[in-house]
């Protein structure tokens, strides 16, 4: 079920009413959440529900087993078992064909034909997200950061909670399980704020991302026929699309959760207002980057040790983040060039320079901030070509298409009027995001000083824009990961 579908618009109110008015006890509410989440997931493909249930049972049991062990060695054995099982499931569905392809290629280099068979595997939606959630649970128990829950219903709710099941934010048991195990109380302010966040998420997804997709799909599919300026325009639009698509999804997920009395992790903190790449990665897909930081980067040394060690660890985490996105060399390259861009900041020790909000208590950024933002954004426009292109070769051809004299020509677009309207909408989107940049989400305090009728009028304008400009229904980009 897509968040931007009419099915979801009917599904949420039904679950909401059942949740607050029919299933009033904590246990029954949690059972309802599990059923609703399984229905939500089965709407896409019921066959993969078993996988979620297996993952849930494995880590629930292993969590208890780790806790029971008295010596560290046996605790570690159970942890390794959990990691192996989780990574095996993920590896099979996500990376099997990638490894087969590379094994075959590697053996061919040495004149041997392995000719291992590919499998026709469908990637279960959300597998990368809920697998990481279950793994972090076992690791945290092993590290004595949390106690395992003995409540299977609560644990299953944590794993399958429908707003964040298929594309995050990746929750941690330490923050989410206590919410599942405690009775939720309806909070008016929290719920209305959730609705506002959902509205903004829908605007980002349906108006900006889906309309960008029309141009992006065409330009990336037919890049050989387009001028350098058109390719650059396509890469620019993809940079906007991916942010609005994914952060739009996260906004809706967080907003829906608030209706049910849950607080999810913030996943995006206005990343395109970042002054350098290090700040960008602290603001982009926060639940994933902090996951890798806590469970991969810090264990391999993090920022401790010499500069060389820091650089090695930085490259390692970016390569892994790249590979997390998909079994493809283009994602490895995407991770690598991000790491490469990080290097000067690590060497100069400036990778933690910007931690506060840009242009704090000012209306506009100063020239240095503006330059930093522009430079970071421009880097992302080029880096994301590797992310979007079909293959590494296509990405390189796309880039070489940009670096031609035709980049100085006017973009030759299929529909210039629609492109201009889209640019106006993007400008509107950036203005609203800029106004709300110090808050949890863009609409949190927009027009809060104005009379209620103005605020409501503004929300109606957004509703109208969503209905008026909604593009062709596109799946969320991150569903494929």
């Amino acid at each position, binding site marked *: 079920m897509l968040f931007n579908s009419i*099915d979801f618009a009917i599904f949420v109110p039904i679950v909401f009413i059942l949740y607050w008015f029919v299933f009033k006890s904590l246990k029954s509410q949690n059972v309802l959440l599990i059923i609703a989440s399984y229905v939500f997931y089965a709407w896409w493909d019921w066959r993969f529900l078993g996988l979620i249930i297996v993952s849930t049972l494995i880590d629930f049991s292993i969590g208890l087993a780790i806790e029971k062990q008295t010596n560290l060695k046996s605790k570690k054995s159970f942890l390794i078992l959990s990691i192996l099982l989780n990574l095996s499931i993920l590896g099979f569905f996500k990376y099997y064909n990638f490894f087969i392809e590379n094994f075959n290629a590697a053996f061919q280099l040495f004149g041997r034909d392995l000719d291992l068979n590919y499998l026709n595997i469908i990637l279960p939606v959300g597998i990368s997200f809920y697998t990481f959630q279950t793994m972090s649970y076992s690791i945290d128990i092993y590290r004595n950061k949390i106690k395992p829950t003995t409540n299977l219903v609560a644990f299953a709710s944590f794993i399958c909670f429908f707003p964040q099941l298929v594309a995050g934010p990746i929750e941690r048991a330490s923050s989410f399980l206590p919410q599942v195990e405690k009775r939720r109380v309806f909070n008016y302010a929290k719920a*209305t704020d959730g609705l506002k966040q959902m509205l903004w998420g829908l605007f980002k997804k349906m108006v900006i991302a889906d309309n960008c997709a029309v141009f992006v799909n065409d330009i990336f599919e*037919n890049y050989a026929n387009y001028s350098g300026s058109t390719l650059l325009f396509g890469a620019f639009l993809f940079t906007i699309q991916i942010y609005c698509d994914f952060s739009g999804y996260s906004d809706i997920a967080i907003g829906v959760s608030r209706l049910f009395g849950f607080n999810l992790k913030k996943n995006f903190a206005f990343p395109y207002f970042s002054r350098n790449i290090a700040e960008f990665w602290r603001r982009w897909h926060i639940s994933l980057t902090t996951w890798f930081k806590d469970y991969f980067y810090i264990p391999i040394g993090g920022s401790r040790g010499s500069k060389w060690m820091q650089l090695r660890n930085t490259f390692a985490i970016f390569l892994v983040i790249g590979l997390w996105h998909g079994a493809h060399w283009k994602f490895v390259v995407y991770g690598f060039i991000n790491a490469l861009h990080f290097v000067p900041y690590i060497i100069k020790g400036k990778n933690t320079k910007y931690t506060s909000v840009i242009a704090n208590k000012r209306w506009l950024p100063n020239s240095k901030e503006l330059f930093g933002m522009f430079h970071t954004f421009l880097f992302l426009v080029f880096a994301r070509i590797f992310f979007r292109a079909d293959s590494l070769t296509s990405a390189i051809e796309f880039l070489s298409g940009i670096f031609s004299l035709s980049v100085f020509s006017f973009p030759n677009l299929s529909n210039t009027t629609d492109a201009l309207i889209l640019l106006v909408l993007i400008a509107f989107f950036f203005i609203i995001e800029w106004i709300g940049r110090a808050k949890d989400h863009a609409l949190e305090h927009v027009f809060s000083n104005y009379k209620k009728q103005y605020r409501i009028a503004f929300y109606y304008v957004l509703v109208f824009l969503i*209905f*008026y400009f909604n593009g062709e229904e596109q799946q969320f980009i991150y569903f494929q990961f």
Partner: protein
Amino acid sequence: MKKFITYTVFFICPVIIIMVVMEFALRQIPNDYKLKSEQIELKKEAIETLILGSSHSMYGFNPEYFTNEAYNLSHVSQSIDLDYLLLQKYINELPKLKTIVIRLSYTTLHEQLGETSEAWRQKDYNLYYDLDISNTLKFNSEVLSIKLKNNIKRLRDYYLKNENPISVENSGWAFFNKTKLNKSLDELGVMVAKKHTAKNDKLVEENITYLEKIVKLCGKQNVKVIIVTLPAYKSYRAHLNKSQLEKVISTGVKMYNNYSNCSYLNLIQDENFNENDFYDADHLNTNGAKKLSLFLDDFIIQSYN
């Protein structure tokens, strides 16, 4: 909680009321699907030849030139699964039906309406043919399936400008009103061929099964099936993917070989059709439709009458 629900309902109510009114108003607007479903009901006792298919058939076969009573039940982007469902719906209601004409285009085996950017047209089959092809609520509503921008235009054109949205004749045939295109036939051929070339073969087997189901269903009712690959302009032909085209043609030949009630006409490079017969690279104009319809009528008379 009470305050939250009251405010939310008050906020949503105007939106829902506007949607309901729009839905009602949109359904009153005549459209090609509604017209064809009404016309076939009126003519069902007389129809001897039924034409099915996509825009290629809709623009390419003009029932006016058929000796026997013919009806063109093709629509833009109508895929073979829908051809089958339409045939299944009407075959028992057409007592004089002798022949089915169905197109086998370059895209026929590789596409289904629900998988294309034209998926919104599914609502027309649900609403006006009562086919129940999609359970999705979206495709059971005018308002939900088409973006507001386009619906406002439809309402304005019909109610304020009094424009007629019907683009087909009562016979089901349609013709292009525009005579000149922005691009030349050569340019269009390259562009459209690329657009029509499939990315994968995942629907091929399923679509061949639909084609077989059509032929078998007709066989049971003693109805002949003429599968036609329509003429296409040279620039289009030149840029088609060879294996995709080969799959299409070999399927047509296979159907002819395997089923006694089936004929296959591959006219894709028929030299009788020149640039004056094409509206664009893959659609015939009025002239081309006349030529093709007369040819087909002759074929039906020679072969079956």
